[in-house]
């Protein structure tokens, strides 16, 4: 009899150890990656990163200014285009579409788009915008990012608006407010933290995306704020620099990677702290 108890206890202990090991494995990789980024990237974090352009190879100087600015421009435009569209679409799904069959289809399609490989989005924007325009452009890159932003914002908007208790809406309607006002003044205010979370998560997602920019905005070695021509951006610049054995370029690549990671992780953490109280249980 005792042997059965012993073997059960043993297998339980083994699994417990394995689970602890799995957790250490997971957290360990994160620490390893962050450590590598910090060690390699911090060394190169001089002020000139933010004041000078990307250099040609073999030069000891140079920074990432044009890439950072280009990324900021494209990310802001992408989020600026994608957020209203996503917001309104999510609103329709949550507020108006509760009993429509179309809602289910749209929600399903949105989930597919949410997890679609970003390189497919790049190919789509290439065919739809770059080819007709005749060349690579910053606006094509921004649109590719917007297409990635939309499903994220739709999903979070719908989830957050669904959490708003119905009696708030009913009270507002009872006072005579038209539907549009009920939604914008009551539902949005109630779900405000969650909606902002959604936008922050979407921004964090596109800030690091490389594949959609590879054949839409390409990259540029110089100062580029012209939306109709190639625009420098941090991820593709890092991509180009990494392959090159030039030590200055490698250092810039690591520092750029550190910048992106810090931005993305901070946005994620801020979003999660904001959305913590509102998480659906």
């Amino acid at each position, binding site marked *: 009899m005792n042997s059965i108890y012993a073997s059960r206890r043993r297998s*339980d202990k083994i699994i417990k150890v394995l689970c602890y090991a799995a957790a250490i494995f997971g957290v360990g990789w994160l620490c390893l990656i962050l450590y590598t*980024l910090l060690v390699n990237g911090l060394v190169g974090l001089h002020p000139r990163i933010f004041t000078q352009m990307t250099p040609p190879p073999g030069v000891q100087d140079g920074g990432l200014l044009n890439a950072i600015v280009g990324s900021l421009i494209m990310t802001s435009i992408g989020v600026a285009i994608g957020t209203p569209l996503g917001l309104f679409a999510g609103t329709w799904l949550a507020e108006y579409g509760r009993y429509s069959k179309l809602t289910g289809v749209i929600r399903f399609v949105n989930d597919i788009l949410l997890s679609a490989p970003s390189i497919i989005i790049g190919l789509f924007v290439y065919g739809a915008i770059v080819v007709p325009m005749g060349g690579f452009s910053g606006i094509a890159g921004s649109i590719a990012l917007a297409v990635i932003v939309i499903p994220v914002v739709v999903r979070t908007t719908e989830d957050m608006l669904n959490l708003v208790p119905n009696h708030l809406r009913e009270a507002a309607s009872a006072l005579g407010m038209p539907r549009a006002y009920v939604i914008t003044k009551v539902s949005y205010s109630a779900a405000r933290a969650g909606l902002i979370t959604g936008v922050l998560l979407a921004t964090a997602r596109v800030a690091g995306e490389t594949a959609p920019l590879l054949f839409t905005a390409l990259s540029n070695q110089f100062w580029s704020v012209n939306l109709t021509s190639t625009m420098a951006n941090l991820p593709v610049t890092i991509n180009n620099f990494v392959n090159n054995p030039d030590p200055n370029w490698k250092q810039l690549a690591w520092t750029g990677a550190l910048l992106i990671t810090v931005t993305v992780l901070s946005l994620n*953490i801020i979003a999660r702290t904001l959305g913590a109280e509102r998480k659906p249980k």
Partner: protein
Amino acid sequence: MTDMALEPARAAAEPAFDRARALSAFKLGDKTFFWVTRLSALFVLIILGGIIVSLIIGAWPAIRTYGFDFLFTQRWAPSLQPTPILGALGPIYGTIVTSLIAMAIAIPVGLGIAIFLTELCPMPLRQPIAVAIELLAGIPSIIYGMWGFFVLGPFLADHFEPAIVSAFENVPILNTIFQGPASNLSLFNAALVLSIMILPFITAISRDVFATVPPVLKEAAYGVGCTTWEVVRNVVLPYTRVGVIGGVMLALGRALGETMAVTFIIGNSFKISGSLFAPGTTISAAIASEFAESDGLHQSALILLGLLLFVLTFCVLTAARLMLRRLERKAGA
């Protein structure tokens, strides 16, 4: 409005309210808002439709030239005149092999972490570790690619792979799978990086579905004297089976489409070799490396590869969502 009721004098002094005009303004506002939101929602459908249409249009020349043989040809010779010989077998093989190996590593580890977080972890540590795992999901894939290229690849090539190669040198089938030379860039390295990337997805979804198990079931099992592992194996996992599988499929969908992390570390070779330590390519890595300089039939073939990837991920994600939706309904969401 209550202030007007309390001060009737002021209320009488106000000009007469044009009720009809206000109501029609409201109506117009309502209608506009309804249509703006509805069109935005329909726009989501249009985007999907646009993607499918543009992929098919771009891939049409390749479909017409190669037909079904495209799926089974290994040779990739874009510079042959007059017609390049192109085949998707190499990328498809690489995609499937790396994704399967990544899943094989990530599923047990991901489930292990989920079990750890729900059953074993001390309360104060629970949130930080959960956040840490989710941060893994947030790291952009180019960072994984860089890290894999500079850190993991050399480590595996110098220490891990030679050990495996010599360990299995005389075992009949395994020595082909694990054949040297050990390389920084190989299918195995890519699969390992991929597994670290998809780990958080499995953990996050498993954690969520584990939380839907009614506590009374677990308490009953503990009350009868089950160990933690027995509770997990006999109560939690069977109850959440569908959800866990849904999460796994979601992670698979992500693994299939991953581009930047894989491109740096997979070696870009279209040849299929039996060894896991040989270079290979996946569909997304092939597109990412060759698209910028391709044209004509070559470019069309790359878009066709993209279409294949989209169809593949579409099917996997559909299956995942269907399973997860069933679970959400059961949990009363």
